[in-house]
């Protein structure tokens, strides 16, 4: 087997939705319940434990807000990459995807600075169950950011050469989903005090 021949199955599209995009929609569906499980558990505890408010008061809204800004902006780049890919402009699509990835990296840098500070102040994952949820929820989200960034780099590299442009939209969908999860994490972890 000298090359990887794409099966004919891959080229069919009975639904009219391209296969990659359809798979991403299903991926998002299964991710909804993963985040639903964490956030649901957190929410129930948070409401049942009014005393957690004094812990939540120590989170830093500025970090959270700046990171929301970063992710929203990276989402903008992702959708512009999609637009460029639709215009069959692989170079431009790649450029925007690189910018999206840059957003992911900035997000992660801000996150590490924020967490380092908090851990130095004694707010560790074991110091209180509020912080356990805080780190776990944001941590699971962070893993998605990392994975998304890596996939975007791979796809951007192909797109630059004009290969598989339809993937740009698919990865964009995933990225918007990661953004939406953060849109909800932000008030849940930072604003409700």
């Amino acid at each position: 087997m000298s090359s990887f021949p794409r099966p004919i199955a891959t080229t069919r599209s009975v639904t009219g939705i391209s296969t990659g995009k359809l798979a991403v929609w299903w991926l998002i569906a299964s991710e909804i319940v993963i985040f639903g499980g964490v956030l649901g558990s957190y929410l129930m505890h948070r409401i049942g434990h009014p005393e957690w408010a004094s812990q939540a008061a120590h989170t830093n809204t500025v970090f959270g807000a700046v990171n929301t800004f970063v992710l929203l902006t990276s989402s903008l780049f992702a959708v512009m990459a999609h637009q460029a890919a639709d215009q069959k402009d692989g170079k431009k699509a790649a450029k925007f995807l690189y910018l999206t990835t840059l957003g992911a990296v900035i997000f992660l840098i801000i996150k590490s600075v924020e967490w380092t500070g908090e851990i130095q102040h004694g707010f560790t994952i074991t110091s209180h169950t509020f912080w356990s949820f805080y780190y776990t929820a944001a941590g699971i989200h962070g893993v998605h950011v990392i994975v998304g960034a890596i996939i975007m780099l791979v796809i951007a590299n192909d797109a630059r050469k004009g290969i598989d442009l339809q993937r740009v939209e698919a990865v964009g969908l995933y990225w918007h989903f990661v953004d939406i999860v953060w849109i909800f994490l932000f008030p849940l972890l930072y604003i409700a005090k």
Partner: protein
Amino acid sequence: MSADATTPHDAAHGGGHTTHHYPYVKIWGVLLVLLALSVIGPMLGHPIVTLLTAFGIAFVKAFIVIKYFMHLTVEKKYIGFLLLVMIAFMLVFVGGVSPDVMKHEGQRWVNTAAQDVVTKGLAADKAAEGHEGKHE
């Protein structure tokens, strides 16, 4: 996942690409204004305003991203339905669990451990506030 996505052929099979593109930068601007509102709102310190601005606006932001960035509204109907069903299952989950986990007592049962944690925690908060008060 996407590393395995489709061939260029696919687009042709998929009825061609007809995604309608919106003025994305303007939409992004709207999102930023909403973000600002969701930060400023809770600063007013009014519980209802906090709830509306923090969580209400999150829903609006999510809606905008879904509609304009993800183009869900022009996607096949069943995709949106699928996502809604997933969210509905999560509501069922929370609905079934919260009587046991969110509440600490019910019909002929009391979760004394959780109640203790709450009382102790609140008492500690009060003590800490008192402390700070004295220092100032």
